[in-house]
């Protein structure tokens, strides 16, 4: 009996107390309505779902101990009837039988095909857990939710009376809380039982359930009993097995179709298909034709199939999933990712059967953690409050070291800083001043534990003066100011950094952050172009990045002497090396404005979405806080609203201005 409106009905249903010795009356009452009762009973060393004649068939006083590839029954210390968790039998056995004749055909005197009329015996499922109710609902979606439906399933589902039982215990293989299917039953039942020390709290969830409950030897429920029922279920929530972090799992898996772990797990996997056969939602089937000797009458026998079967994806000419890793990936990605696309939910309910019944002890939770590791919740950082914001107030810093980068460019390491500067973020800038020199905006090129680096090109009086300072000198700083690179927008994507000339300076800290958090990105790469080899910044860092596996570095120069062995050409020529799906690219671009325009155009033509391109702009800044008015661009102040912008936010102005 499908009890979809049960939710509201259940909420209003009154709870009663049923003594443990009266559980047999429930079995009797259901059998009295002409139904066979299918419920938990001990057979072959496990609690299976099979026919229950009397309450004596139930596993009173037994509990199970489960782990990956292991299931054992043991005597429990109490006389609970439902003191176990789910066993080897999925309820689909009774709604979606493992063997079914779906058609017959004949060509003796007449020629034709017949579909058998569904033969759905009235059954009652006793002891259905929350995860199992969720699984039945998932198969409802699969078999009944589309334009074509499964008549046999419909009939069996309609003929099933559901007696649900709240879980008051859990196994190491359980993870229903991760899948949000349990532990508490929230609907989808005709009768609901919750076991407490003295017996059961019982309530109806449908008119059919009410009729049964009304005839049972129940009594009113005490406050203590009602409280114990709630506490027992709530306690299970805290005793779950290893959780499965589900946040974004469907997308995370789709990004990892080539992860090396697929091959590793496939070496262990014996492809027996036990996971899929035990799974309460797996629904694939195969058909076998049976006929008499001369083929005059035949029947089409449908059987549970598994995507691990060698013939599952085979056609004339080959197999679409020829390798074990392909088949394992098909199963896991279907269950946890593509099921959403097809049916609007996960295909997993967290019952843990695929873990317990895997003879080589593969735990999907471990595989998912290794293949598509959870990304820590994305915390969007906010800018630290700048110190000495207003023009005229400065925080003093000491110059720790000076390193020449090119003929006219120098990197200064500043220390003895106000801690606010150390909390700056890649992409932000500071206003730097010396007595008698006008303050200039300089991007922070590197954030160290107790210092920051500023790379200064000697183009004006202040920058020339800064470049000629010696260690120990003091400078005035305001900041950190402006917007910063939205690194978290590239999580799970290809992070692409495009730099031209000294434009690498405000990107240096970004590259450091990308490399330090490499696991969060699908790939990290740097495209760097400069006029000549001598104009390159940070040559030691470039060499170290090039040698690192964490980041792919491609370098080009516009022109070079014969000693240059690298590429020659503008930076956009490097884009030929991009082989990824560019819709999954997040790009960060800095350089001379014409170079940025060409780079952005190149990225867009490759398919990078415009809202996934971030640029850092340079304009005349005097105050750095949006008051002096010099740095306006596209209705924004570059100092306050920038310097880092999402390309979309600049609109057409990005291509209009430029030196």
């Amino acid at each position: 009996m499908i009890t979809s409106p049960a939710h509201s009905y259940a909420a209003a249903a009154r709870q009663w107390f049923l003594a443990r010795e009266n559980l047999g009356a429930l079995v009797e009452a259901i059998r009295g309505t002409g139904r066979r009762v299918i419920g938990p009973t001990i057979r072959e060393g496990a609690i299976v779902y099979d026919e229950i004649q009397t309450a004596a068939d139930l596993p009173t006083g037994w509990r199970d101990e489960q782990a990956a590839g292991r299931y054992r029954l043991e005597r429990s210390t109490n006389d609970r009837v439902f003191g176990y968790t789910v066993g080897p039998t999925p309820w689909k056995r009774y709604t979606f039988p493992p063997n079914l004749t779906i058609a017959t055909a004949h060509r003796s005197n007449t020629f034709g095909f017949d579909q058998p009329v569904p033969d759905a015996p009235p059954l009652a499922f006793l002891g259905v857990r929350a995860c199992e109710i969720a699984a039945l609902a998932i198969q409802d979606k699969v078999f009944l939710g589309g334009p074509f439906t499964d008549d046999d399933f419909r009939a069996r589902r309609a003929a099933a009376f559901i007696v649900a039982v709240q879980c008051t215990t859990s196994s190491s293989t359980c993870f229903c809380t991760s899948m949000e299917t349990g532990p508490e039953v929230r609907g989808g039942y005709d009768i609901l039982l919750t076991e407490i020390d003295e017996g059961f709290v019982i309530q109806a969830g449908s008119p059919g359930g009410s009729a049964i409950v009304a005839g049972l030897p129940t009594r009113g429920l005490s406050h203590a009993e009602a409280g114990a029922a709630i506490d027992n279920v709530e306690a299970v929530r805290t005793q779950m097995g290893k959780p499965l972090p589900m946040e974004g799992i469907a997308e995370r898996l789709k990004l990892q179709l080539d992860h090396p772990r697929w091959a590793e797990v496939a070496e262990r996997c014996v492809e027996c298909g036990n996971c899929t056969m035990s799974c309460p939602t797996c629904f694939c089937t195969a058909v076998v034709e049976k006929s008499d000797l001369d083929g005059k009458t035949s029947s089409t026998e449908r059987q549970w199939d598994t995507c691990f079967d060698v013939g599952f994806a085979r056609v004339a000419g080959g197999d679409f999933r020829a390798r074990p890793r392909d088949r394992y990936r098909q199963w896991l990605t279907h269950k946890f990712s593509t099921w959403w696309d097809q049916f609007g939910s996960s295909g997993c309910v967290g019952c843990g059967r695929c873990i317990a019944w895997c003879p080589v002890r593969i735990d999907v939770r471990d595989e998912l953690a290794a293949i598509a590791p959870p990304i820590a919740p994305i915390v969007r950082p906010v800018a630290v409050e700048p110190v000495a914001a207003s023009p005229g107030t400065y925080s003093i810093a000491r110059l720790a070291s000076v390193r020449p980068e090119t003929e006219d460019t120098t990197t200064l390491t500043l220390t003895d800083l106000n801690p606010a500067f150390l909390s700056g973020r890649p992409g932000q800038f500071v206003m730097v001043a010396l007595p008698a020199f006008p303050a200039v905006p300089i991007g922070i090129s590197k954030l160290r534990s107790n210092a920051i680096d500023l790379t200064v090109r000697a183009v004006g009086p202040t920058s020339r003066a800064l470049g000629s300072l010696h260690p120990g000198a003091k400078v005035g700083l305001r900041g950190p100011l402006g917007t910063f690179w939205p690194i978290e927008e590239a999580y799970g994507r290809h992070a692409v950094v495009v730099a031209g000339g000294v434009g690498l300076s405000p990107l240096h800290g970004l590259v450091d952050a990308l490399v330090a958090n490499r696991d969060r990105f699908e790939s990290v790469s740097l495209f760097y172009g400069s006029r000549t080899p001598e104009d390159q910044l940070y040559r030691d860092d470039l060499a170290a990045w090039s040698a690192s596996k964490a980041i792919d570095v491609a370098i080009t120069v516009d022109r070079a002497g014969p000693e240059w062995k690298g590429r020659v050409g503008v930076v956009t020529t490097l884009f030929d090396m991009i082989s990824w799906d560019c819709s999954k690219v997040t790009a960060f671009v800095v350089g001379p404005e014409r170079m940025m325009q060409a780079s952005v155009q190149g990225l867009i033509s490759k398919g990078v979405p415009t809202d996934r391109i971030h640029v850092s702009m340079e304009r005349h800044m005097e105050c750095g806080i949006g008051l002096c008015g010099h740095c306006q661009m596209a209705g924004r102040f570059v100092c306050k609203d920038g310097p880092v912008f999402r390309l979309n936010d600049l609109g057409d102005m990005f291509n209009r201005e430029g030196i």
Partner: protein
Amino acid sequence: MATSARAARPRVAVAKFASCDGCQLTLLDLEDELLEIVSRFDIVEFPEATSRRSPGPYDIVFVEGSISAPEHIDQIKELRKQARVLVTIGACATAGGIQALRNWADHDAYRASVYAHPEWVESLATATAVSEHVKVDAELRGCPIDGGQLTELLTSVLVGRRPQIRDEAVCRECKRRGIVCLVVAAGEACMGPVTTSGCNALCPSYGRGCFGCFGPRTNANAKSWSTGMLRSGRPPEEVWRLFAGFTGYAEPFRTVITELGKTKG
């Protein structure tokens, strides 16, 4: 109609090499279907059932037994020439059988220890599957073969289609029958995951782990299954014995046995 069907009945021969005759008996054991089978097939050569002998050519030759003696090699080649379709039946014919265990042993020493006059016994140093000597058109696995699969093969010949014999793990049959996994719930040793189905999980249905008599299924991950058992604490001798059963000489079981043999010492 009946007469013409009779006239067109395929000529069937059943032959044997080194084997126990149990697979041939499966044909005679098809009691419900036997009359219908003989009305549609002309079983002209079947020493186990009749002393009537008929020379080839034959439409179908069922071959039981492994190639174990020098004269077997010529005999199987001759049979192949006489057969339109050659079907090997049983673990001996398809994998070498239990007697293929001698392939890892000292043949002469075994012979000397068993026979008073080993010089009177002519046997090959190895017992091998028929397919190692001639082309085989179809195989029926098992020790003995399954009557249902034999009927299906005969049906497929008459109907004119490929036999619908699934190549899947014995686990699949356990799960469909609702048999509780002996490995997981009882810690039993079982060859089910690497063995091809067809027996309807006969041994597990009696609480015994699968012996692997149907032999390795396609893509059997014997390496993972054997190393997993070793890792869970089973002694190498036990794992060796499990793989070195009726079909141990069939790959990839053969490799597992050979490698375990090295560690067994």
